[in-house]
């Protein structure tokens, strides 16, 4: 009986396991193999061990891209998560039909595919057609260029803010729904204000969800690719190694350096892993205190 259950259990997860194996594990193994080889345009492929990785961590283009996504994450995540949190706390309190409508509207950008969103923002940021420039010009900033190299990273942050704030808000709002209402009643009986309830009860209670949203945003930021790639033709900003993922893409598909590209991809994956794990560890320590 037990054995049969085990088999049935495996049958249920089999489709998933197969997909993971063929489209994740196998390609990873192959990429890992590729990253240990060197292949030049002239001359053949041969084993080089970790040389590609050593080159990666010394590669100024890779490091420059890494620094850029770090800055990008540092700008966009705190703003995005605090706005998401504020919005979630607000609709949790008001609980009217308006809140439901707002929830839907805020979530909608998440349903727009990234490529479509990037193209759309290409127009929104345009000096000819965009509302942002139209307003800026009337406010006395006729030179605002959202595609200028030193501005472009903020323009991308804007797109990410638009796309993900609503999504994160929903995650945090759902977590808030899980808190027992009796706790609030007790707090109100004790004379706590709504603000105190938010600070002292709600936020500590959904700390796990907040950590989760920050973590996902962090991983997403480090893998930044779609927006700068799609918008690159509008701006001079997007260089060969603008972000690590763009660099890996260009190495493989513009320069036929598949081996080095594999190493760059793995190096990025490793850094994402270390950063995420470090962040989790730190937030857990802080929670323990």
């Amino acid at each position: 009986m037990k054995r049969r259950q085990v088999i049935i259990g495996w049958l249920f997860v089999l489709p998933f396991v197969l997909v993971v194996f063929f489209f994740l594990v196998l390609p990873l193994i192959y990429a890992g193999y590729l990253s240990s080889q060197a292949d030049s345009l002239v001359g053949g492929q041969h084993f080089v061990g970790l040389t590609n990785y050593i080159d990666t961590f010394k590669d100024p283009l890779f490091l420059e891209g890494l620094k850029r996504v770090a800055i990008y994450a540092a700008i966009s995540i705190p703003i995005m998560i605090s706005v998401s949190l504020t919005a979630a706390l607000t609709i949790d309190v008001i609980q009217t039909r308006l809140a439901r409508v707002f929830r839907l509207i805020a979530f909608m950008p998440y349903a727009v595919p990234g490529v479509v969103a990037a193209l759309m923002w290409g127009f929104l940021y345009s000096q000819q057609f965009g509302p942002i420039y139209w307003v800026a010009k009337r406010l006395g900033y006729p030179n605002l260029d959202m595609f200028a190299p030193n501005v472009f990273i903020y323009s991308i942050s804007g797109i990410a803010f638009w796309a993900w704030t609503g999504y994160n808000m929903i995650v945090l709002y759902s977590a808030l729904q899980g808190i027992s209402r009796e706790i609030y009643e007790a707090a109100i009986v004790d004379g706590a204000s709504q603000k105190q309830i938010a600070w002292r009860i709600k936020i500590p209670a959904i700390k796990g969800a907040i950590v989760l949203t920050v973590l996902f945003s962090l991983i997403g930021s480090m893998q930044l690719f779609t927006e700068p790639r799609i918008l690159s033709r509008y701006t001079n900003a997007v260089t060969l190694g603008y972000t690590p993922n763009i660099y890996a893409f260009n190495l493989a598909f513009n320069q036929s350096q598949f081996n080095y590209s594999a190493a760059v991809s793995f190096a990025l994956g490793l850094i994402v892993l270390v950063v995420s794990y470090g962040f989790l560890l730190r937030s857990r320590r802080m929670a323990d205190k």
Partner: protein
Amino acid sequence: MQKTLRSGSFKKATAIFTTAAVAALMGTFGVSAPAHAASAVHVKVWAWYPNFKEVVAKYNATHTDIQIDWTNAGAGGDEYTKLKTCIKAKSGCPDVAMIEFQTLPTFSILNPFVDMGKYGASNADGRYAGWAWAQATSGKVVNAIPVDGGPMAMLYRKDLFAANNIKVPTTWAEYASAAAAIHKLDANQYIATYGNDPGWATGLMWQGGCLPYKYNGTAAKATVGINLNQASCKKVLSYWGDLVSQGLVDTKPFFSTDAGADFDTGKYWTWVAAGWTPGYLSGVLKTTTGKWAVAPTPQWTAGADAQGDWGGSSFTVMNQTKHPKEATSVAMNLYPPQKTIDAGSPWDIGLNSAFLYPLVTGVESNAAFVNHTYPVFADQQPNPIYIHASKKLGAFQWTPFQDFIYSTLHDETAQAIAKKEPWASVLDNVQTKAVAYAKKQGFKVTA
């Protein structure tokens, strides 16, 4: 796209947007074959020429032995990404692929091509423009069949130059004076934008006498010449760098939505661009159609007659094909050497709908092309200027890693535009990086 800016890619941008979805669906079964062609050889073609669907339909309707299965695999870099993947994977490549001239050696070093010379491709009858044939071949090996080119000339706002009594420049010195005069009239107007397109910059340097690359994949596969920081190249980049630094030339990238609109608002007065650019302009101009004219590219020496080229493309046959003979025939006859340009014929579509500059000499010299008029240029037949430019073009070679050089040139120029490095060091830096890259890839580098 990091960015691999490729000349040919963008002229068709508008067409791509509208046809991409259709093309994806067309795939292998979209083009209906005549019923009697059941035994016909099917040849897979990847290409992104505008209005190509009509050309394929015409071919299939007029051939019984061969039928074309066409896929639009993306323009320029998007297609190359897929080609490089199928070459690496040793399967999945089309029989015939469209490739731009500057990228031919970048592919040929991966050994993906059939030598079409073995299947009857030749230029013994002078069928193709000589400069293009030289780029399509390597020694006696025929890698590609030339289709369209981009001989350069200056597009300019005839009405604005006349109304403001500014001389239409014939030399680069006059061009710089005109740039100052225009910007003085209105601080929001420029003679041009430095679009930072490496293919365009290369065309301008070519015109300035800068022939920086030497490569012959057949004779010496592992030897490449790179000499980007010679005086004739630096002269061109410094010239534009000066104009940009003085604020006399704008820096919006070509083919962006805003730059396209700016050509229509009077913000930009000129564009030294390619033979296919009128096609692009036709798509973006709304209010200034008919106010433009074409003049020869300004000269470095008064009275000289130096010309350059920006872009152009060809058909190659991939050696994964099972039908090299038929594929070669397709490559040669999709845009065939026509003597008359009948309505609905391939070159009628190519010239009048797709705005291609023909590298098939019989078409180039055909009255239908020579005397062609365009709404963009109200009272001018501009093609004799482009034809003259194409005839003056000499040999030009590319490196087998042109993608790397183009993206490095783009990025270094972007640094200069952002005032993070002097314009004077752009080509020095590209040279240094290109040589280092070539050596890392196992090449022997000569000047």
